[in-house]
Each structure stands twice: as C-alpha cells, then as structure tokens.
C-alpha cells in the first residue's frame, strides 16, 4: 500500500508487521516517534501478543531486550546518540550471547557539545560491538531493512542495528510502500530460538569463560559475521522477489561502471551525492557513487571490486576517528590495499550541518583537479576555529570552546539549518 508517511511511522509499521513480542524503549530524540507508533499499536491491541515496556534508561532497554530474547521472544528496541552509548555495555553482551535483537538507531551526534541533529558518530562508535550494522538510504529502505533485519538476526543468532539518519529520514514524509501483514508473514518465519530459558530444558546462559575458551567464543562471532556477508545479499534478493523492490544488500553502486572517480558514503546523503553525480555525468565527468549498505560485517571484497578500477575515491563520512581521520575511509583503504587508488577522506555533516549540492560540487571539482588532500572537512569554518586556537595559544583561562565559537559566529543559540 502506497502512503505518504513519516519515516518513523514507516519504521514502526515495518516493525509491527514483524510481530515483535517484547518492545522496550527509553525516549531519546529523534527515535521517539518510532516507539510512540509502536506503543499506540500495542495499547490498541493491533499488535498482540506484545509487551511494551517503558524502561528507566537505555541500559535497561537493552537489558530487557536481552532477557526477552533469551526467553525466546522476538525483541525490539530503538535508540540514538547518548542512548546508544549508555547501552554500550549491554550491546556487547547481546552480541556475545548471540541474541537476535533488532534495534533501530536514529543516527544523531553525540555530546559534548550536546547536539540532537544527525550524523553517524553514535553508530560508528559501536561498529565493533559485534552487532550487524545496516544503513538505510531512504525511508522505503529503512522500512524494508527492518523486515530483512529480523530474518537475518534470527538466521544467524546475532543482533542487528538498522541505522536510519535522524530527522533527515525519521522525521521526513515520503511516499512509502507499506507491506501487508500476509506479505511479511510469508517472508519472515516465526522465531524459533536455538537456545532459550525454559524450565523444561534448563540451560545456563552467560557463564564465566576464562582464557582457555574466550578467544574461541569471540572468533565464532567473527565467523558468524562473515557468514552474514553471504546471507545479506541472499535475503535482499529474497526480499526483492517477495516485495518487488530492491532494498538492502551489501553495497550499491551508482553509475560506477566506467567511473574514474567514485564517492563512497552511507545513509541518506547518497541521494544528494547521486544528484551531483548526475550533473557531472551530463558534463562528461566519469564519476559514480558507492553506497555501503552494510558496514558490519564489512564487505571487503565487494568494496574492492566496486572501487578497483577507479583512480580516485572520495569517502564522504558523517563521523570520524578524532586524532586519526575517517573511519569508513580506513576501511576503504583496507579494501583497496595494493591497488593504485588514491583515497580522500572527507568528514561532513557533523551535528546536522547540511551537506548541500553546492558544497559537493565544489568538493568534487577540487578532487577532479587533484586539489583534495587525504583528509578534509567539508564546510568547516576554518577562520572560526583558527581564531579560537589563537585565543587558546595566547593563554589565559581556556573557557568553554562551544560558547566561544557560538560567540564568534554571532549566534546566541544553536540552529539546525
């Protein structure tokens, strides 16, 4: 059914169609609309049997999901930003125990300075938590990835994080094709846990493991992640067969066939990038884009195959390893090791700073003219930063950076756009 729908409500619809039995959540912007939509469905009895548990923290949200999943229930939660960090300990626990929990991350910056707008700092900080990480490009894909995520999680017995750009997708109204219950039921079998807490067959889950076995248990997690590299494309093609549209997968190339320059990105910014690619193609520039749909496990071979023939790769990413450079960029370099491809990390869109076509045009022009270095920062207000650095070098009390910079900019309060 086609409907003009808010991203969050589309996700809530998809999750409800997957018949979760336990939903637990703690409110944090911009995740709230998703769980509000699910709470409504549970309260009205539209989603039954299902328990909606309002918890006292994200740490508790993930812990409730752990208990529910271990007891054999399909469990779902959603969070963002600080919330994801607050549940970090439980994230590692869920993946270590092999519990197929599905979670939406409505991607948002992390503080300080506190900021509610979109970037990927939150999910990127947990990229090595053992969770599978899928990144949605559009509201339709956000919806579709949740249906695929439950199937993937339960086949592998691993938790899956579906990353959806906060506000840009979660709060945007777009036309989406909402699947019917019968369609989802036919695609997603009932949850049959491999092991569960059951008095009829008592098991001990979460034992203390010493040096003699810990390494092997962790290696099994890695092996399962590598297994996911085969399953994700298969599930995506099964999905396409069942629902008639392509969503998910590991990577998706856009006009990459003969491209000499390829722009790599994750999530909703791909749409803007593709628009600029189209413009440049019209001018005869051999440029394309590569969307990484699944960042963990990292599709090394697919990224290598897609980029191997390009001379130049620009990695546009909404997070970075402070003190090093790009996170996605490091992974792209790994995939391209030994190949004569120059990789340029561009950090962009932090804390919700808009990534505009105009900025991208200028960026790509620099790249095409070989003016782009290995690490750059799109639309960073260099002059403001330099004045603050000068002030610090001059001595005196350091003072609060964020406030100084706002003063520099002549704004009294942060604005989104």
């Amino acid at each position, binding site marked *: 059914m086609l409907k003009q729908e808010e991203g969050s409500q589309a996700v809530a619809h998809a999750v409800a169609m997957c018949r979760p*039995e*336990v939903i*637990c959540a703690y409110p944090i912007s911009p995740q709230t609309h998703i769980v509000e939509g699910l709470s409504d469905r549970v309260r009205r009895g539209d989603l039954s*049997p*299902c*328990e909606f*548990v*309002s*918890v*006292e*923290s994200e*740490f*508790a949200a993930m*812990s*409730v*999901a*752990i*208990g*529910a*999943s*271990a*007891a*054999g*229930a399909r*469990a779902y939660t959603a969070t963002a930003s600080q919330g994801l960090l607050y549940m970090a*300990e*439980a994230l590692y*626990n869920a993946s270590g*125990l092999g519990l197929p929990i599905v979670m939406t991350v409505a991607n948002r910056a992390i503080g300080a300075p506190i900021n509610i707008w979109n970037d990927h700092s939150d999910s990127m900080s947990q990229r090595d938590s053992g969770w599978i990480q899928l990144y949605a490009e559009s509201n339709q894909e956000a919806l579709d990835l949740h249906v695929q995520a439950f199937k993937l999680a339960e086949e592998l017995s691993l938790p899956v994080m579906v990353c959806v750009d906060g506000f840009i997708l979660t709060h945007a109204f777009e036309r989406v094709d909402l699947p019917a219950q019968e369609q989802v039921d036919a695609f997603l079998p009932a949850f049959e846990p491999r092991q569960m*807490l*059951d*008095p009829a*067959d*008592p*098991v*001990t*889950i*979460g*034992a*203390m*493991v*010493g040096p003699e*076995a810990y390494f092997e248990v962790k290696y099994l997690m890695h092996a399962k992640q590598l297994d996911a590299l085969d399953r994700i494309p298969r599930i995506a093609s099964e999905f396409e067969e069942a629902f008639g549209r392509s969503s998910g997968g590991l990577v998706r190339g856009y006009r990459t066939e003969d491209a000499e320059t390829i722009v790599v990105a994750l999530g909703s910014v791909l749409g803007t990038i593709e628009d600029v690619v189209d413009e440049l193609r019209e001018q005869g520039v051999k440029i394309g884009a590569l969307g990484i749909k699944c960042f963990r496990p990292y599709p090394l071979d697919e990224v290598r195959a897609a980029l191997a023939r390009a001379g130049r790769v620009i990695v546009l990413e909404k997070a970075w390893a402070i003190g090093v450079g790009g996170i996605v960029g490091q992974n792209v370099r790994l995939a391209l090791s030994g190949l004569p491809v120059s990789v340029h990390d561009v950090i962009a869109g932090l804390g919700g700073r808009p990534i505009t076509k105009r900025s991208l045009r200028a960026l790509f022009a620099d790249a095409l003219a070989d003016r782009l270095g290995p690490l750059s920062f799109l639309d960073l207000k260099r002059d403001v930063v330099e004045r603050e650095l000068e002030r610090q070098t001059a001595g005196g009390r350091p003072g609060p950076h964020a406030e100084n910079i706002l003063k520099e900019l002549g704004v009294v309060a942060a604005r989104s756009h």
Partner: protein
Amino acid sequence: MPHQQIKFYQAGSFVAGNRLLPPEERSVQARMDRSNSLTSGHRACQGCGEALGARYVLDAAMRATEGKLIAANATGCLEVFSTPYPESSWRLPWIHSLFGNAPAVGTGVAAALRAKGREDVRVIAQGGDGGTVDIGFACLSGLFERGDDVLYVCYDNEAYMNTGVQRSGATPPAARTSTTKPVGPEPGNAFGQGKNVPLIAMAHEIPYVATATVAELRDLEYKVERAMEIRGPRYIHVFVPCPFGWGSASRDTIRLARLVKETGLFPVFEAVNGEVVGVSKIRRPVPVEEYLKLQRRYAHLFGDDPRDDVIARLQELADRNIRRFGLLTDAPESAGLPGHAGDAADAPPAGVEGESNLMRMLAETHRGAQ
C-alpha cells in the same frame, strides 16, 4: 509466621530441628524431592553465606512454582563461583548478563513469558549488595515502579567481595574494607546516611518486601514461598556473612547471621504494600560487641587502642532499629503488629547465663532513648 510456631529447639541454639517436625513442616532442604537448584561442586568459599542463602531461596522458589522458574543473575561471586565454563551448578534455566542489569533482564524474561502466555513460569532475579544497592539500583527501582512480576533477591554481604572486598553502598559504618582501611583519623567506613534498600523498596509500595538471614533458614524459605504466592515486584534482602571479606571463621557464618539479628543491627521483618506487617523479635538480646568481635573487619575497634566511642555509635544504630521496628518482645509499639508479642514460646529458654539482666538493660536503653 508459620516457622515461628515451632516450639522445639535444639540444644544451645534456637533453630528448629527438622527431625522433630512433622514431614510437611520440614525445610525444603530436608526433602528427597528438593530441586538442588544450586547443586554441589561449585567454588564458593567455605562458610559462604551467599551460597547457602541462594540454595535455600531457589529451592524454596522451585518448590513453590513446581519447578517452573527462571533465574537472572547479576555479576558477582554467586555468578562466578557457580559457572566456571564449561561447568554450571545451576539446575534451573539461568542467565547472567551484566553486573548492573539483573532486574531489567528479569523484566525482559517476565515480559517474554507474558507475551507467550506462559505466566505459569515465574522469574527470580538476584545479585549481591553491589549489584543491587549500587550499580543495579536504577534497574531495580524501574522494576518496582513498573510492577513487573519478578522476585528480586539481594544477598547482602556488605561489600564488593568478588573484586577483593571494596566498600559498597551497603557497607556498615566502621567496617574495614580494602577501600576503607583502618588507617587515618576515622578508621573503617564512614558513618554515613546508609542505604536501606528494603525501606526504599517499601517506599515504592510494592506488594512484598522482606528481610532475612541465613541463620533462620526456615524463615527465609517461608518468605520466599510467601513471595511466590504474590504477583508483581517483590524484594527479599538476605543477610549473608562472608568469611573472606569479614575476616570471620567459616564456622561462624550462621552465628554471625544470628547475632546481627539479635543485636538489632539487622532487623528481620516483612512488609506488605509498603507497611511492616511482622518483625522477628529479638529472642536473646546481645550488645553489638558480641557480633563485632568475631570479625577482623572490626578488629581496629578492639585491642590495644579500643574505640569504645565507635562501638557506642554502632550500638546506637542497633538501638534505633530495636526502637523503630519494635524488635523486643515487650516493645509496646509492636503490640499492633502481627507477630508474637506476649507469646510465651518466644521467651528465652532458661539456662542462658546473664540473659535476663541483659534483657533488662537493653529494655532500659530502649526506653531511655525514647
């Protein structure tokens, strides 16, 4: 309290002997069909109060639920000594997730059972005092507030024993721990406000709160059975001596658990919907010294440079409990409480030296303090 009605006592103690009881009144542990939920072979220290408490709690809960029980465990001694992979002492479905989330994991299990229509299966969550009163406290309060159908049991040995006896929010004043050593002008743990989680649980007005010790194991079993008759959040706080952390003899675990109640330092009571409905009376009042002297964690209060002042402050804490909970058999404020005020069976048996004088002294202290 049914266990209190037993009128036979073993020589030298006040514990009802199983052999003297009709089979239906005997401890769960005396039954051939006990579940052995925490079975032998685990790696707890000799004289571990927590292992003893957990065994009684879980076997009683298993009996009450006819074996339909799932346990969620916090990180800590109980988790470590029971499950060194690939061994497990647990003979019931059991999960350990993290240090601070046992209540929330319990909630998750209960929610799953509800969604699956398996509310015949019950949930117990458990942890030590660190996992309960400190790091797991927010999750515990959330569990209470939401009314989730979980029995939470705290085994309180008054410090972080698993990590090497560091102070917790449940460490009593003056006690030596590895982070409150008997050095400096105020040796041992500070006299703080304390963190009485049973009372905090009562403030949530949950259906059932009880305290117990491993000296009165029939009382503990009874409280677990009673808790399992109730739906919703329930809390039992069990006092479990730790020979390793307290510097006490392994053979003194039960003795210390008895003395802590008899001194008034640890009031043993039950509360329903936020109100105390019963207290275990002190049968043979003793001054706090008798309890403190047996533990090296209080050694700095005795010896060459005795700290009578500190001991007096600890006695004040005990006296306050005695007053507040009406712990003496003749305490007037206990008259309205269901208990055994005036019950002849609770009078101390003859032959215990100095008993009546001490009793009088404490009663006077009690009245004087009012």
